């Protein structure tokens, strides 16, 4: 089972600042998904990255997949309080089972 390492564990920033969270592995990812989870709710898929070097944008969120497909990052520009949540990376297998990282808790204060 591949180990997904996320960093940092916790990030607290002011509204308007930028932030980056990371997801790394010693093995190559087949593909990688990023989820956001709000307190008391289930995770919601943000994006799936598949190709090495891929960059995807979702409004103020930018997702990058490393060339070697061993790492990924999520960058948020001009963070807002609504971006607060637990950001999880996960690798799906062919059965749809997800191997999750431990997550990065992001808190954006007004």
């Amino acid at each position, binding site marked *: 089972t591949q180990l997904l390492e996320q960093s940092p564990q916790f990030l607290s920033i002011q509204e308007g600042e930028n932030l980056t969270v990371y997801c790394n592995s010693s093995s190559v990812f087949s593909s990688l998904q990023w989820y956001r989870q709000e307190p008391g709710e289930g995770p919601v898929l943000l994006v799936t990255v598949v190709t090495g070097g891929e960059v995807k944008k979702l409004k103020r969120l930018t997702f990058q997949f490393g060339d070697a497909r061993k790492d990924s990052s999520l960058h948020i520009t001009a963070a807002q309080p609504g971006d607060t949540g637990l950001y999880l990376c996960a690798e799906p297998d062919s059965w749809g089972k*997800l191997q999750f990282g431990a*997550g990065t808790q992001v808190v954006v204060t007004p």
Partner: protein
Amino acid sequence: SQTIHQWPATLVQPVGSPLSLECTVEGTSNPNLYWYRQAAGRGLQLLFYSVGIGQISSEVPQNLSASRPQDRQFILSSKKLLLSDSGFYLCAWSGAAYMNTEAFFGQGTRLTVV
């Protein structure tokens, strides 16, 4: 549209009591179904998954069991709860098994064993 329902939202149970959590999916057929558990503020750990009625695969040895009596119904059970069974339990479904399919999660059940 597809929806997933999970209940109850919160549950407080004494040690040694039984457990039954239910999850149902609407608007799709033959989904893959999953039970995950999450420790506070941390990642999710897969407990069980099912690709069809009566087909259950367990990912980790534990005090829990799962059943799928109908195509869109998934049940998580225990005969005798332990303190270590406390946690946030999430049911999820996905489409036919292929890489990169999206998982859709229920609202979760917060279980506290006292």
